[in-house]
């Protein structure tokens, strides 16, 4: 396992560092290569490669490609053959709305999301697959079309690093727009705090799934959003122009935590109901830990 950004490169997930594309790229490489992509099969492999035909098993073939259904039907051994010249496309959708600009510590959800997007893009490009990156808030603000050129990673990092979150969220609508842009099956990775209408979110996810794409949702949340640790009297100024509220947080902390837990539960349920992977990404957890944790899980679930 690669060292986390906190151990190997303590500055890389630093907000200033993440604002620099170069640093983002270094981070992504560290995280991904630390996962020993070169030594293990990519967790994304085998899923995006299309089946082409069957042929009879010959000595030396990889028994993993045996089609057991055919064996069961015909009692004869056949392996699956794939169209290996077809790469999959990973659409990385990063929520760049203003709500992502919150962070109780030094790192905001935006910083975390950018780093995560960079890592995922790098991972996909490294294995010679294609990656497209979209930055969304109330519309698709930036779209970097698919590329399988690893050299383009710097451009992607620069665009990610430079983008300032400042608009409201219309997540569901953006997902619908992205779904129209997906031409072939692939993976759609949504990195967001999901602070939008849950119904439209579900519709967006369903649309992407209908388009044949796998969806992975990284639900980015700040630890303060999860634990609500505030004391005294606090004036909460809402991001995305959601108003101002003054209250004593200690009096309502328990209720708030219950509400957030219920929200996460609902979102998880939406994902599971639509066959998506849901990952709660706490910005207090080192990025490498979050990502590698998911990748290990994915490898086990795909295998």
């Amino acid at each position, binding site marked *: 396992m690669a060292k986390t950004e906190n151990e190997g490169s303590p500055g890389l997930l630093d907000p200033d560092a993440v604002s620099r594309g170069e640093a983002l790229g270094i981070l992504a490489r560290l995280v991904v290569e630390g996962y020993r992509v070169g030594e293990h099969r990519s967790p994304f492999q085998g899923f995006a490669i299309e089946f082409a035909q069957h042929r009879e098993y010959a000595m030396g073939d990889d028994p993993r490609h045996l089609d057991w259904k055919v064996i069961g039907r015909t009692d004869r051994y056949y392996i699956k053959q794939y169209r290996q010249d077809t790469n999959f496309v990973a659409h990385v959708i990063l929520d760049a709305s*203003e709500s992502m600009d919150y962070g109780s510590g030094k790192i905001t959800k935006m910083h975390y999301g950018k780093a995560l997007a960079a890592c995922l893009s790098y991972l996909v490009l490294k294995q010679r697959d294609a990656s497209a990156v979209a930055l969304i808030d109330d519309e698709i603000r930036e779209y970097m079309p698919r590329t399988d050129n690893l050299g383009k990673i710097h451009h992607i990092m620069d665009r990610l690093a430079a983008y300032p979150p400042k608009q409201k969220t219309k997540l569901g609508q953006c997902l619908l727009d992205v779904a129209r842009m997906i031409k072939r099956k692939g993976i759609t990775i949504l990195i967001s*705090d999901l602070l939008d209408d849950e119904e439209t979110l579900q519709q967006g996810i369903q649309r992407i799934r209908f388009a044949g794409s796998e969806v992975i949702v990284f639900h980015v949340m700040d630890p303060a959003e999860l634990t609500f640790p505030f004391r005294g009297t606090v004036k909460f100024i809402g991001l995305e122009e959601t108003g101002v509220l003054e209250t004593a947080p200690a009096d309502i902390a328990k209720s708030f935590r219950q509400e957030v837990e219920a929200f996460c539960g609902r979102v998880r349920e939406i994902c599971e109901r639509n066959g998506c992977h849901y990952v709660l990404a706490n910005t207090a957890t080192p990025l490498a830990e979050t990502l590698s944790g998911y990748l290990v899980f994915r490898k086990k679930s795909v295998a």
Partner: protein
Amino acid sequence: MSFLNPAVLFGVLLVGVPIAIHLLNKNRIQEIRWPMMKFLRNIVKRNEKKLRIEDLILLICRCLIVALLALAFARPTLWFGGGTLISADPVAAVLLLDVSGSMGYGNGVETRLDSAKKTALEILANLASGSSCALYLVSDQVQPLIPRPTTDMSILRKSILNTQVSERGSDLSEGVQQAATLLKSLPDGEKEIFVITDNQAEAWKGSRKIQKLVEDNSGQIAFKFISVADRVEPNLAVTQMELEGGVAAVNTPLSCRVAVSNWSGQAAANVRITLSADGDSPMNETVIPSIPPNSSQTVILEVKFRDPGYHSLTATIPPDRLPYDNQRAVCLQVVDESRVLIVDGTPTADPVDREGFFLAQALQPVPKDKIADYYLKLVRKGPENIPLDNLGQFDSIILADVAQVNAATTSAISSYVSSGGSLMIFTGPNTERGLNFWQKDSHMLPLLPAKLLGVVDAPTDKKYITLQTKGYGHPVVSIWNDPQNGNFGEVKYARHFSLEPVDVPTLPANVPTGEARLSRVQSILDFSTGKPAVIEGTFGLGKVVLFASTPNTSWNTFPIHPAFVPFMQRLLGYLSRRFGDALIVSPGQTFIHTVPTEFIGQNFFVRRPEQKNSNLAGKIEEGTHGGVVRYRDTGAAGAYALFMGEKKKPFIVFASQPDPRESDLSLVDSKELDAVLAAAKVSEEKLGQVSGKTGHRLSGTPHELWVYFIVLAFLLAIAELVMAHRFSMPK
């Protein structure tokens, strides 16, 4: 309800503190940019009302706690059974403030006098504008602090605040008398007398006089009586202290009789009494196992002095809520020797047959080889060779059955006694022969406390006349009231003189007359028939003791009775303490002492009770018979020592002894009080309202409520703690 500490009511403004804290906390707000407003709004909306109510409840609790504490410190008071107190019109008033010893009784927070002072201040505060007031301090004397009514309330308040409790007895009647006299002398108008007292029975001993004053002034003066005590309080006091026994001589055991009185409804157990001399650490102590309710117990403690001179003895019991009567002092002069002249009626007889033989054995009850060291020195003379030019060298002179003496001797003896000497006269056969002298001599007769009527023989059927067997009232013979000490019943008289006590006017106990005349005649010991066997009288500054029979066994068996030696020793001791009364004053009474002329003009210093050092007290003045020391500041009970210049030994000591009756805190009989109040046309009305013109009774029993306020504040604080904890739990 009134407040005894109204100034503290400003503390109620502190109620603003929790409100200010509440507002400050609200102002100390941090701002946070927050993404999840939707969630927050929903929750706040659900809990807002509840949170507001909880905040309000806690704020109210905190404000109430502060308010209750402020009110408690302001000493809210309800006056029960009250009557109206203050007239709405300007009045000329007299405030009589009881400052007797019992007003020093404390409840742990304040004394009765403190409470009385607060009441007096409250009266002043409520007098109508234009009123004037005089202030008298009343104990067993009246001290007009502000003798005529003044409108200057600030000087009245200051005088009240500076008033201290005295250690004197109490008698309200004189104060009421003086106040009524003062007000009657003023022009017509509203007139009121306020009497603030603890209603002690002793203070009301002149209740009939007060009742008459109230009746005589009805309609002109309103009398208002306020009590600061509503129940009888227990009290232990040292109520008596006397020296007894023989002469106070160096290295000779001296007995001190101490009585402790228990004024309460319960027995007092294990009461420790300590005896100390000259303000030093205790030299003797004892424990009285039990003193029954409302009674006294007497103990005898012994001390010894190593040095001659004036000394003080103080008996002390453990402290209680009335401290001044927990000790009592007595002063004495300790001598290194005492000289006694025995004049034998028949000096030429064999020494054993002389009249003074038994007296000599009784007065020097030590082996012959110890006589030289014994403190009592005897000189034996006959009637013809009495050293008339220097009788003052003797502390006592005993005429042992002398038939008669010449005029010069009689005159010298008369001067000797009137100047303070002690004379004992034994009668007998010689006296019988010289009866004419004893019945008619112009110099001797005035000295005698009784007339010698004639000789009485024992009735033939009974053979002997005996002495009383009980009821020994005189201090000399009081120890024989204890059956363990036996009695005089076995003393037999074959013959005795019949003594008829001389009828003389009774003078006050503490004032030596200084005049050459007989006073204060009393029997020391009686025959079983009730006639005096031994009788004493005060002549000038000295004493004369007359015996009805012989000092030897020719007419009676007394000299060979076991009680004779202690009797004579105690009699000599009693006579030696004849100036003891002059060494005792009542608190506040001026102490007067005569000193030699050469000390006139010199400074004298006084060491007061409980003090280690002496302070300059005044100068010695010129008096009729030499220098005179006058010291007035004797208000504190205890022993005082007077010094001349830098001398370390006092030239005189005296004790200020409070009136023991003042230690009895019993309240006045309600019938007596009701009679006075009925005369004042009492009506029961609520306090706080404006009075009419008639006198009103103030039940005056203040019932302080601060305890309830403190308890309420405490309960509220606990409730606030519990609620704050519950409310702080996250919702």
